[in-house]
């Protein structure tokens, strides 16, 4: 077990260094000089001194290898440089927008599992019956529906329903209040994007739960349980579901990717100042330091989530260690 843990954790290092190298390289692939592109994008004029100052600020005047070491070292210290757009430290900007995105992520995971696990189980238990077709269609539709459209429809529904019920249209608040200060206001803002992203994510989990459940239901020990005369509820809950949910755990890693992709667009729809919106803005504003830091951050979170998921899986399922 310890050998597996150490090996799995050590594997993170080359992946992260590789990802850092890729991000670093990508940002140097920008055609022309970053500073010239950036300074010239407003249409105004600029002199060579401004370009030189910009180069010095970004550390572009030192050798490429040193720049890379600086980039990686800065990342470990939490120092991502200053934003080329606002001039404020990147870490500061990210920290200010992190809580709202994290809260939506957590809520979305909870919502997605609440939807997915019961529906996936029912779908497997009633395989090829009408209800199975309905659930599978819901699941594929979830994958096919763009999250921003779902968000727009949700806003539309909120407006119409509130108009009909209260007489005046109501919109969810857009400024972030921590949950411990005003839970009601906080939840009335975060629940909508969480629902939007959660439904999409649940589609993946639902399919996985269904197929894992189908496999487990054909196992010998389920037949034994039936032969013993156990009631169906106990067989499903205690024997089948427990084992079927094991592979579903590994999905949390994939969900993480879905959530991040979902947040990027959903925060835009609901006008929320989270990490996803910051990312889109930094791309629009050609803020390369910010884009670089955010891509790296997202990849790091994604890689670490997958590592933790693998470790949890190994802990839950002892067979995995020997493979």
């Amino acid at each position, binding site marked *: 077990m310890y050998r597996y843990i150490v090996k799995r954790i050590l594997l993170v290092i*080359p*992946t992260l260094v*590789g*990802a850092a*190298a*890729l*991000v670093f390289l*990508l*940002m140097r*692939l*920008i*055609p022309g000089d970053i500073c010239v592109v950036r300074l010239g994008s407003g249409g105004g004029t600029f002199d060579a001194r401004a370009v030189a100052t910009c180069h010095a600020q970004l550390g572009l005047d030192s050798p490429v290898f040193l720049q890379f070491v600086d980039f990686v070292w800065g990342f470990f210290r939490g120092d991502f440089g200053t934003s080329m757009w606002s001039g404020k430290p990147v870490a500061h900007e990210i920290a200010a927008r992190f809580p709202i995105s994290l809260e939506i992520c957590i809520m979305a995971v909870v919502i997605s599992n609440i939807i997915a696990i019961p529906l996936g189980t029912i779908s497997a238990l009633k*395989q090829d019956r009408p209800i199975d*077709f309905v659930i599978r*269609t819901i699941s*594929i*539709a979830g*994958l*096919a*529906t*763009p*999250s*921003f*459209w779902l968000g*727009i*429809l949700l*806003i*539309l529904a909120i*407006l*119409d329903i509130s*108009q009909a019920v209260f007489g005046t*249209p109501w919109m969810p608040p857009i400024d972030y209040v921590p949950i411990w200060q005003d839970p009601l206001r906080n939840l009335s803002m975060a629940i909508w994007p969480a629902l939007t992203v959660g439904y999409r994510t649940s589609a993946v989990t639902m399919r996985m739960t269904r*197929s894992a459940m*189908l496999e487990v239901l054909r196992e010998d020990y389920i037949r034994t349980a039936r032969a013993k005369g156990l009631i169906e509820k106990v067989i499903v809950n205690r024997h089948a579901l427990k084992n079927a949910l094991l592979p579903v755990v590994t999905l949390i890693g994939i969900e*993480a*990717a*879905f959530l*991040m*992709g979902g947040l*990027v*667009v959903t925060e*835009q*729809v609901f006008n929320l100042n989270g990490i996803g919106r910051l*990312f*889109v803005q*930094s*791309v*629009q504003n*050609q803020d*390369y330091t910010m*884009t670089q830091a955010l*891509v790296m951050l*997202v*990849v790091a979170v*994604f*890689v670490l989530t997958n590592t933790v998921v693998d470790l949890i899986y190994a802990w839950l399922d002892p067979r995995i260690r020997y493979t």
Partner: protein
Amino acid sequence: MTIAASPSDVLTAVVDDVPEGHRSLLQRALIFCRRQPLGTFGLVLVVVMAVAGLGAEWIAPYSPTANDFSVMTEPPSWAHWLGTDQFGRDLLSRIIYGARTALIVGFSCAIIASVGGMVLGVGSAYFGGRLDLYLQAVLDVVMAFPLIIMALAVVAIFGTGVHNVIVAITIPLIPRCARVLRSSALSIREVPYIDAARACGFGHRRIILRHMVPNVMAPFLILLTAFVGQAILAEASLSYLGLGVQEPVPAWGLMLQGGAEEYASTAPWIAIFPGLAIALTVFGFSLFGDALRDALDPKMRDR
């Protein structure tokens, strides 16, 4: 014994009588339709979208870019079936032309990514050794980037527009295809007929093209179909964010960006129809892809 057989029963009987190896393409297609009703429904959606995209000039009642300020934000009517947007443009015509953009981006990304993935995956599996090791390490790193994040990073570098969007979506799809095809190709490499081909003195090119590639065609086609849907969705997301296809090119994601939210309560059709077009198309590709997987790869059934 005078029970009249319905036409579909006769068809089924005729089709079933033909031995597996001698079926024509049409017969195979008929069998697919009968066994995969959901997949057939998906195929119909895909075909409708393809016809709209290819024949947009003949089908669309108006020009997608023509403004008519006398009919701004008009609800659906006989003159404008799906209504008009805030600039008086006919929504149906824009959706029909948008199908073309989605089709171009979807198929370009899917074909380039899956062919690229096949070259890398099959090559990596066939030659093995260090090449395989290094290539897998690089692909693993690229896989660490969620699709939309990678696409946005590429857009940040090369800028927006149809061509750049295709590049941006293709890059993250390549390793996803390479990984799947590599594992399929690895198992084929161990099969005796590959050894036999080598013993006959065939070159690498002949073994790869004639013996390995045809055997990874099933996962290749399944991935290709799945990628078209994913690429259309990714393009719509990028365009919605203002970082994909740019005006005046009609694109579904773009239609939702331009004021769909502002007019949500007064002209909901502006927000509803383009999104429905995206969802139905991607839904069609998913259903068809799932059915194709069941038909081509019996081992993966029920998954």
